[in-house]
């Protein structure tokens, strides 16, 4: 290899073989700073995933089996697919639509307020886990500050069927980080929409609707969809918030996996937990495939 390099420095001929190779070598070299990243991915993603895949196909006595996967789709475990996916779709839809509207409103305002919103959104988007659950409990719980204030104003939010401890409550809480995340990731895409395009559309006789349907939507749809799918994954895998707020009264996949591999009550069912985890990976892969298909389709159309 060192020979090749010497050759290159001796006789640099632009556009021919050795340089081409050197370019490739150069791009390999440029990967060196990324090595820690690859090591990180290997250790924290590939390595555990391999073990989970292997364990998912093993019985408690270490023999190969499909039994774990058969159990995955039965009873409460099977039902949890429906509950988790449904909750994630609703949460992603609310987050994506509300976030997109807020983002388009913000893009129209000045740079300074845009920066302020971006900073706030990035803080809110990263608020999660048990602290988020307690924020909502302290605010909107039955004895919460907001609940009490609204009661004093004559509105008892618990007068009807509302409760923070149900799927709708969880969706409300998730919106707290889903909407800002959408704003954060979707805004840059919006900023790429040039005012000139609107002018071009107008001068070619387009109205607001045609501009929206034939220019904005095709341009922004891939960005919108990819962010929405990210929101889906975000709520699909969320664990701590839901755990703190439901104590298992809502059968979400991550919570059930948690009970199978951890806890003080259920023992010796780690393999079922691993199979469930593989199923979650499967759902993510399906969602990603849909995204890639849509992306391909939208490119072809353009």
């Amino acid at each position, binding site marked *: 290899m060192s020979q090749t390099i010497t050759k290159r420095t001796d006789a640099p001929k632009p556009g021919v073989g050795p340089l081409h190779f050197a370019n490739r070598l150069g791009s390999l070299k440029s990967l060196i700073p990324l090595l820690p990243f690859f090591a990180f991915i290997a250790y924290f993603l590939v390595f555990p995933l391999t073990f989970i895949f292997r364990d998912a196909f093993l019985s408690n006595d270490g023999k190969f089996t499909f039994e774990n996967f058969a159990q995955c789709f039965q009873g409460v475990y099977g039902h949890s697919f429906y509950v988790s996916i449904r909750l994630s779709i609703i949460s992603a839809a609310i987050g994506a639509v509300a976030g997109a509207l807020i983002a388009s409103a913000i893009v129209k305002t000045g740079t300074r307020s845009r920066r302020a919103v971006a900073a706030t959104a990035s803080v809110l988007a990263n608020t999660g886990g048990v602290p988020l659950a307690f924020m909502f*409990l302290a605010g909107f719980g039955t004895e919460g500050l907001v609940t009490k204030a609204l009661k004093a104003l004559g509105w008892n939010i618990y007068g009807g069927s509302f409760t923070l401890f149900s799927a709708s409550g969880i969706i409300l809480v998730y919106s707290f980080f889903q909407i800002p995340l959408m704003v954060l990731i979707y805004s840059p895409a919006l900023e790429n929409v040039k005012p000139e395009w609107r002018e071009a559309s107008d001068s070619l006789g387009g109205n607001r609707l045609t501009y929206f349907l034939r220019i904005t939507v095709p341009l922004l749809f891939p960005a919108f969809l990819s962010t929405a799918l990210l929101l889906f994954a975000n709520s699909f895998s969320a664990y701590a918030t839901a755990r703190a707020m439901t104590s298992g009264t809502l059968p979400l996949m991550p919570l059930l996996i948690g009970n199978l591999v951890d806890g*003080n009550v259920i*023992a*010796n069912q780690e393999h079922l937990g691993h199979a469930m985890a593989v199923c979650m990976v499967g759902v993510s892969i399906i969602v990603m495939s849909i995204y890639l298909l849509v992306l391909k389709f939208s490119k072809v159309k353009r």
Partner: protein
Amino acid sequence: MSKKLKVVSAAAGIVLATTALAVLPATAAVNASTASSAASFGGLDNLIKAAKKEGALNLIATPRDWANYGDAMDIMTKAFGIKINSDNPDGSSAQEIAAIRTTKNMDKMPDVVDIGLSHVAEGAGLFANYRVQTWNSIPKAWKSPVGNWYGGYTGSIALCYDSSVTPAPTSIAGLDNPAYKGMFAIQGDPTAAQQALISVFAVAVAKGGSVKNIQPGIDFFHKLKASGIFVPVTANATAFASGSFKIDLTWDYNVTGFIAQAKTIGKTVKCTYPKDALVAGTPYVLAINKTAPHPAAARLWEELMFSMKNGKLAADLTAADLALPGSQLFSLVMGGQNVYISGGASPITVASMTDKVSPPTALIVPTGLPQSVLPSLAQQTVATNILKTAWPKI
């Protein structure tokens, strides 16, 4: 040399020789990792010496305010100079076993574990056979014949409430009072926390069910959730501080800790046994890691936790006490079984204990309590399987 002196020196020689005979083979040959009783060390004194030499003990999933473990840790440190490394205090039984498996050959590997009975079968192969001196006082039902695990203590379900709650709850059946809307919680998911599982049993018993029939408990939870009384948060101190609940069911031995934590935020918590159900849990099990990095300290910890002595806490030990030989000091300190009692737990050797401390005064024991019942491990497994499906639907 006078005759008298000769006799004395001869006697001293004999004593020395016999001591050496008794001690030397033991200290030279004993492998703490395989010692199956204090006698394997050549007595408690040698065990203590070996433990002191190791100087540290790795505990896992053992919070200081759980069953009063803090007092036992302090005794271990002050009396025997053993530093306590407490890892992942709020961890679960499953995490304890996983820790032994995944930290093989590391210094931080847990020396001893405190796990739920449900996890014993899974971990049994990882535990060392060791019989504490009070082995015969541990009921047969709660120990493995080879000594690789034995129950240490258990508790019953108590009812705690913020003193501002009116009317003050006294029974489980009375929790359906609309005045308690948004106030009642248990310790998490009954398919994940034994404390929550036994709480559901307690509710079942109070509502006409039994250890064999948990359904009335599930039905009552369903009713309480539908009327907004039951709040599905984990009833810990943080949730209490955020106002998420005001009434909960909990292990009696965690009551003192909860009352103290509530006090720090200016709240008064009162605790009692519900008058319509007295339900105990299967004991928590103590076991020594077969490959413990501090094998002697681990064994001394077990000896301490199963000692039935009524004695001094760490703060009461004087310099003179600390100068005593190991086994004498051991007899002087409060044994773990009494430490459990002072934390509100029920120690495993309670039937054989002759000198018991008094339980914490914070827990109000009403008169005319019902007969205590205890769901067996098999009954808990049956209930867990029912709850896996039924709990998400309550």
